[in-house]
């Protein structure tokens, strides 16, 4: 009976929750890709948190003696056209982007999940109406959609979040809907219906928790897209109003001086791409690892 005894021991009440948490975390560390991705993301998160400590200057301080200068000991990455320290602006810029991107993705996940659940669970006419409206939104090229929305409501942090939510929701709704269609025919959903449970309870207790795996991975990839989107909007001058340090905006400003000071474009571009690549590696590694032994 040693088998049973061992099993018993491992299920000891207090340790169980930690074990579970550790089990799910340890998946990350099995995938080298995910670890590399996570390291890059954590690097940027640390930079954002420690910005006041790390930044050598204020992101707004102008040094009229050094305009569009290449790296010097006082300005390790050089300065921009107003003589501001690029390194400091880069460091503070990570704060905006790491705040806005996850918030906008959270909002679009919330909206998309709600629509997808309703469409998938109820089906029929409700589904048709919801999905056709979302199809109509998806028919527009995303960049065009961003331009229309931002030019209509004006550039601001809040409006950027709003635009990304609106543009991202249809894709998430489609994903959640297809997961819902798969899950709603399972027996535990039938059992819930037979208990006379409400539609809301079935959607949020029986269906949504079991759709979370693919949803979380999709959301992580979307944070990467959102960073791109914020960068693009910044580049087009539709992002955060100046002088807020914004990576996309920095590229846009430095673009005009690309022949005299090419590094001014390069640094923020590297920042954006490293963060996006990090997030994608993390999401891909995680997805691969979760599906490997099935």
């Amino acid at each position, binding site marked *: 009976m040693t088998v049973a005894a061992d099993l018993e021991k491992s299920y000891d*009440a207090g340790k169980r929750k930690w074990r579970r948490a550790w089990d799910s975390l340890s998946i990350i560390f099995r995938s080298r890709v995910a670890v590399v991705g996570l390291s890059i993301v954590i690097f940027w998160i640390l930079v954002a948190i420690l910005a006041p400590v790390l930044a050598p200057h204020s992101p707004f301080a102008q040094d009229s003696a050094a305009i569009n200068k290449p790296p010097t000991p006082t300005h390790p990455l050089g300065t921009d056209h107003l003589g501001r320290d690029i390194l400091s602006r880069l460091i503070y810029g990570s704060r905006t982007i790491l705040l806005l991107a996850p918030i906008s993705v959270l909002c679009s996940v919330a909206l998309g999940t709600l629509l997808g659940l309703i469409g998938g669970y109820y089906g029929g006419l409700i589904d048709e109406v919801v999905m056709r409206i979302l199809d109509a939104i998806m028919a527009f090229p995303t960049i065009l959609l961003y331009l229309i929305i931002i030019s209509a409501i004006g550039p601001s942090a809040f409006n950027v979040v709003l635009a990304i939510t609106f543009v991202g929701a249809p894709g998430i709704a489609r994903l959640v809907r297809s997961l819902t269609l798969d899950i709603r025919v399972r027996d535990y959903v039938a*059992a819930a219906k037979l208990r006379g449970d409400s539609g809301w309870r079935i959607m949020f207790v029986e269906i949504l928790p079991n759709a979370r795996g693919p949803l979380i991975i999709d959301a992580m990839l979307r944070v990467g897209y959102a960073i791109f989107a914020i960068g693009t909007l910044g580049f087009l001058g539709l992002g955060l109003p100046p002088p807020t340090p914004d990576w996309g905006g920095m590229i846009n400003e430095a673009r005009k001086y690309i022949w005299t000071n090419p590094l001014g474009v390069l640094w923020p571009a590297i920042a954006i791409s490293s963060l996006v690549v990090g997030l994608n590696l993390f999401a891909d590694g995680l997805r691969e690892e979760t599906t490997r032994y099935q």
Partner: protein
Amino acid sequence: MQQARRAPILKVQDLAIAYETRKGDVQAVRNVSFEIRRGETLGLVGESGCGKSTVAFGIVNFLGRNGRITNGRILFQGQDLVGRSEEDLRRLRGDRIAMVYQDPMQALNPSLRIGEQLAEVLVVHRGMNRKEAEERCIQMLHRVYMPDPASVMRRYPHQLSGGQQQRVVIAMALLNDPALLIMDEPTTALDVTVEAAVLDLVEELQKDFDTAILYISHNLGVIARVSDTVGVMYAGELVEWASVEDVFLRPHHPYTQGLMRCVPRLGMDKASSYLYPIKGRVPPPDNLPPGCVFEPRCPYARPDCSLSRPDLREVAPGHWARCLFAEEVARLAWAPPEEVPVRMAAAHPAAADEKPLLRVRDARTYYEVPSRRLGERKQLVKAVDGVSLEVKRGQTLGIVGESGCGKTTLVKTIVGMEKATGGEFEFMGVDISVPVSKRSMEIIRNLQMVFQNPDSTLNPSFSVGQQIAWPLRRFRNIPRKDVRREVVRLLEMMKLGERYYDRLPRQLSGGEKQRVGIARAIAGLPAMVLCDEPVSALDVSVQAAVLNLLLEIQAELGTTMVFIAHDLSVVRFFCDYIAVMYLGHVVESGPAEAIYAPPYHPYTEALLSAVPFPDPTVEQKSIRLSGSVPSALNPPSGCRFHTRCPRKLGEICERETPPWQDAGNGHRIFCHIPLEELRKVEAVVVVPKRNQ
């Protein structure tokens, strides 16, 4: 066993196979040795996860990227297959080993016509020209009793029924005249009548082609039917290997004996007999007991058993067993465990005049099929078409029939998951012909369901305790602080105990999941529980435990049950009344014992003759139905069974709906053949008398 007759085609010696997993290497198979001679069938039987399929995949070197053979030899026609390169293997094995899987669609390419796929085998392997090959294929299809082979050659796989697809796969396997045919659960996905026909075919082909067959199945009945010798596997080891009679009548290993006691044999019922499940569960392959693998579950276990791993040894001529005390075990009269539960039957005798708890009259459930072309009229699938049933309080009604007969639709209509098209449905005196959302809480509470698939019956995201607590709180007025205690009480009733409270479904075995599903269904103390094949996805040893559990619940709570199943032995054991369904109709109904004895409805007779029994000495009539079940879109006129009925009278069967004939004691048969004629039919199954 007629040894030394011919050299073995396949000889497996001390085979061990390991899979690489996250937690390191796991030994899936150890010390497996057996041999198969020409013209002989070895049946490999065991419960899920015992490694029987792994052995088959090891022989054909299909172990996948993470599997490998770690020890032993596989001699095919005298040549060792282990450790050879892919190219060597192809040369040695050539086209001499063929394999048939459980799902025929895995073996057939859905986008190629049957003819192309079959002919290709000959064109590629034999270098035949196309025309010659096609002729040979038609002959082979004819050989496997495929109706109209020439037209089948031009069809695509999806245009054939499951049984026909499996025949095509078998024909394909035989085209190369293989020396060894490996069949891995080839009939598991098929209905009993189709299964019986395929098994007949296997037996016949083995004689004609003189092929050696390795037949893998979890079903003891099927193994008893097709095998010459039987190997019993448990936890990756071969624990017994002997002729089919020896294994089934004189089992020498405690596990084999345990298996035999788990399965209800036809004729057993809950009043006169009891199923004895094997205690405990199969040890996980990464955590095996140090001694004999079966020791923790063995009723005869002694201190010596946990010291060293016993070898497979010859305990009688031609009879091999892996047990230290095999000779004693075979002789010892086995004593049932002390906690034998009380007999269940007649615990709640229904008074003859009592009003039925559930009454269904002329129930009809039709589905609309969306029209394919514009302007076409909508077609109706008449899944349930005029069914009348009654169930009295405390009784169990069994519904049997093959897939597509409408039994699940009927149950779904009763619980309100499908909308009834017509008919009267009355439960506890209340009309229930409305969907579940329009029923009162009282009716909902009293009518609950147990589902078939243990893997989808529980919500994977919530703990066992949470899932049982919710219906408790919903249906019963239990103070919040007492909910946990009540859940634990229910868990104990399910023989699971409090330690299961916080476990997630993925940490449970199939049988445990099913128990939690049952606990969830009875949490609100329903008057009636509908069970849709509750044990058909479970291993036999677990199946026995779950059936016993249902019986206990019934005895304790007086729950009325409707029990759907396709296993006729289980239904006979479990149910008081039985209804046999065919194509949306009930064709025969009555007390359980009456259904299994003449007079039979011709369909019931055919069903009974098709059931494989776990006893090689049973004498069974061989009635095989021709054709396949007609479409419910356009059911045959008159008696729906007339297109396949072996006792068809003539035109009257095609023209007129048959009358209900009363054979007494509530036994009714829906047939034109006069009762006197039906009474003259001999019993389908004769079990030889034996002192056991």
